[in-house]
């Protein structure tokens, strides 16, 4: 398993193939008769020439060099790497969901539209909001749409001069990036010594130019913004709107709702909170839910119901437009819907409770060995600092790499930016006490190694398919794809 696997392009031999089409059964015409010669491809693309068994072994070999939740513990803070129930996959692969075309007549997709309509209602109930769109393909895509809605709202009231979005210094990087992409100016608000938004500074920052505040609650330190009602009051009094970054919604299901806290626009990361697999970095889904007076700005189309019939409504004169072709990542929506139906209200509340217990348990046990910068009860995740280990020349990155040697995924590191040598841990509700105890033992062992044998940590990982990779080199000399070898007779030519 150690060492490199050749690229698929480096395998096989000319003429080999892994798949053949049925023989063409219609009358043929010469291609040149159908397509003008100058539009035809001259050189075929240098794609692989391998047999089916070669292709299968190649990708199975790659899969064995990959770490997923089904392989082991994945305490990646803010990413909510919970176990993904297998029934979700089965549901999404039903032919009636997987093999329908987005432009089929509405009467042939009533089941799909009903699922979307109902999922929208569930998300609104969980968020405490009026209506939602399922269109965004990811959380950051939802943020962008949420801010477009915010902008459309202010403009509709003749307040287009509101050009500033306030973002805490602990925020996800996507918040300021989304704001900039939506044409907003970003203003940063400090966190106080308890890890919450500094209310006094917020009061100074808001004003007639404030469009809104983007907030994650619980925030990226895993702490509940205890002054949330005051924060909402300050932003609303200034004429701004409050945006809920739903990355951490797993902590509050059935306990409290963003709408009741004063948020006006909410996104959910369905792939996190509602257990749809992350697929190695996507696809996700980032629906946006809004309060009543923002509903007109939701994008086209919306799923509506007329008696027993579901239909797509494109007639929305105030809509911000469209941010994606078709209706959203439907396959992801099916999985999230399946999960919500499976758990129901009680199950979702249990999710949050157990996620929070697991996180507090881990935090309590690890606080003895690693610096805990904010000494409060955490919600579903918490942030440690590696400053004690740094004194021995061991950085947080080294600790993360050393964890890989013990067969667990590393936590999120160096985020949030306001914690020195940050280590952000999110166990989720699907991990057992035994797994958490094993993780604690590994973390204690690494803390001890950092004092007694720092080199073993600094040079980690040792037991992985490849050793620590030179990321600086990759960025300085970008090699972004394989190139076919130049035939000998052409070498040096041209």
């Amino acid at each position, binding site marked *: 398993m150690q060492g490199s696997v050749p690229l698929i392009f480096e395998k096989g031999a000319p003429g080999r193939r892994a798949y053949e089409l049925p023989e063409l059964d219609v009358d043929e015409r010469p291609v040149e008769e159908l397509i003008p010669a100058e539009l035809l491809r001259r050189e075929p693309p240098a794609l692989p020439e391998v047999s089916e068994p070669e292709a299968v072994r190649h990708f199975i070999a790659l899969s064995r060099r990959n770490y997923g939740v089904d392989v082991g513990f994945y305490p990646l803070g803010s990413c909510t790497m919970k176990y993904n129930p297998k029934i979700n996959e089965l549901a999404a692969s039903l032919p009636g969901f997987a093999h329908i075309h987005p432009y089929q007549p509405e009467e042939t997709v009533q089941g*799909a539209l009903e699922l979307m309509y109902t999922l929208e209602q569930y998300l609104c109930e969980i968020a405490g909001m009026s209506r939602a769109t399922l269109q965004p393909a990811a959380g950051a895509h939802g943020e962008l749409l949420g801010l477009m809605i915010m902008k459309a709202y202010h403009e509709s009231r003749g307040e287009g001069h509101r050009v500033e979005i306030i973002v805490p210094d602990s925020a996800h990087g996507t918040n300021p990036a989304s704001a900039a992409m939506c044409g907003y100016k970003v203003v940063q608000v400090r966190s106080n010594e308890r890890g919450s938004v500094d209310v006094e500074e917020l009061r100074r920052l808001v004003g007639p130019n404030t469009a809104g505040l983007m907030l994650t609650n619980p925030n990226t330190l895993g702490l509940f913004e205890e002054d949330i009602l005051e924060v909402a009051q300050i932003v609303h009094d200034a004429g701004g709107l409050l945006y809920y970054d739903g990355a951490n919604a797993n902590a509050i299901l059935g306990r409290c709702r963003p709408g009741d806290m004063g948020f006006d626009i909410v996104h959910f990361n369905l792939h996190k909170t509602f257990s749809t697999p992350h697929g190695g970095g996507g696809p996700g889904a980032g629906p946006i839910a809004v309060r009543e007076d923002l509903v007109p700005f939701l994008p086209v189309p919306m799923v509506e119901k007329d008696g027993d019939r579901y239909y797509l409504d494109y007639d929305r004169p105030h809509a911000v437009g469209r941010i994606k072709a078709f209706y959203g990542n439907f396959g992801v929506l099916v999985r999230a819907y399946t999960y919500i139906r499976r758990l129901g209200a009680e199950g979702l509340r249990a999710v949050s409770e157990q996620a929070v217990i697991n996180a507090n348990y881990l935090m309590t046990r690890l606080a003895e060995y690693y610096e805990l910068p904010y000494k409060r009860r955490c919600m579903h995740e918490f942030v440690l600092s590696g400053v004690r280990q740094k004194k021995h020349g061991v950085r947080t990155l080294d600790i993360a790499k050393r964890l890989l040697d013990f067969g667990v995924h590393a936590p999120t590191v160096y985020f949030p930016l306001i914690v020195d040598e940050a280590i952000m841990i999110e166990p989720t509700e699907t991990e057992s006490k035994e797994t958490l105890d094993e993780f604690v033992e590994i973390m204690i062992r690494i803390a001890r190694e950092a004092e007694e044998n720092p080199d073993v940590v600094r040079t980690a990982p040792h037991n992985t398919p490849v050793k620590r990779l030179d990321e600086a080199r990759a960025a300085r000399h970008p090699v972004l794809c394989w190139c076919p070898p130049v035939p000998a007779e052409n070498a040096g030519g041209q």
Partner: protein
Amino acid sequence: MAYSPMTEADKQAMLSVIGVQSADELFADIPESIRLQRPLNLPKGMAEAEVRRHLEALAARNADVTRYTCFLGAGAYEHLIPAALGPLVSRSEFYTSYTPYQPEITQGVLQATYEYQTHIAQLTGMDMANASIYDGATALAEACLVACAHTGREKVLVPTTVHPEYRQVVHTYLRHQRLQVVEVPYDQGATDLERLAALLDDQTAGVVVQQPNFFGVLEDPRAFARLAEKHGALLIACTTDPLTLGLLEPPGAYGAHIAVGEGQPLGSPLSFGGPYLGFFAARDELVRRIPGRIVGATVDRDGNTGYVLTLQTREQHIRRERATSNICTNQALNALTAAVYLTLLGKQGVRDVAYQCLQKAHYAYRRITSLPGFAPAWERPFFHEFVVRTTADPEELTRRLLDYQIIGGLPLGRFYPELADCILFCVTEARTKEEIDRLAAVLEGLT
């Protein structure tokens, strides 16, 4: 709860280590007034078997293309999918992993993504590709933003022969950065090049060409390239079906600076419009402006080749509001799917698919346009989609085809009011002669 291992005994033991009496104490930071005092108004949870029955019943209310014969394209395509693809992309080591932040234990998805980037670069004839974007429409919008940033100009030209929903997304994205989108009309199914030439000026950042265009018609991309070059604008090539590149000249060869499109046809199911994947390829000179994730090759401590996410200084977790885009995830699983699909099809297979699409679509075109009541909308070379004019009501015709288990083409009136008597048909390699003949026979009976 079946997905959580926590027993009552575990819970008590953990609460006691934490030092609290009850779980409720852990939620003490939530102000009393906003704590939800009632259960969420959701249906009661169901056992797995009940959920399964419920979803099977919902799915059964949809007419899927395994039971119906589909002649719809318009940005979503039914192609044959090799049997080996499913078992490979459903390996849970792939689909239950996250963004590969720890490359040493995620070489699988990183190498597969690197191979995907290579496949896309090869197919499009461009220097490099990113690790994918949400879908074809958002890829096109991001490409327009790149063109504006790179040239420092504020206008892009988008022909009305570009997919209507892609155009809507471009409008939405550019409007919020105060950039201008100007649409170029079509003439006889292809972009009106005279109008294009007249609209191009030294303030134009980019010119878009969709090849084949939304009507399936082949545009003359070299003419676009010449005009764009004259004014220093970037040429952005877009396709909704990259399999056409098995036969068609790739964007890199006709001078495109950026090539984007929809990767769904490369092995992803129709799935009611998503999840799909946008591919994004470009010339080397644009590499530091490209949005989204990119995988690069490097070496480890021992000199072994390995792969990492690279050029991350462009990204929002480092540059925050100065990032080149806000995209945080890609469509990794769909990109893996595309890599596996292109591997299985290989050099010859991709050409074969394109060839059969072309031949079958032209056969269908000859059959349908020879029927009374149907005529070609225009005489232009096309690939695997074509527009016919009909004396029947297209909406009504489409509804009646359902009685014969046929999902007909797309009535164009919803996007082009002037084409209210037209239908856009698509024929891929997945259709058989028998199915095409049956469509023709039913159409003949209905008009």
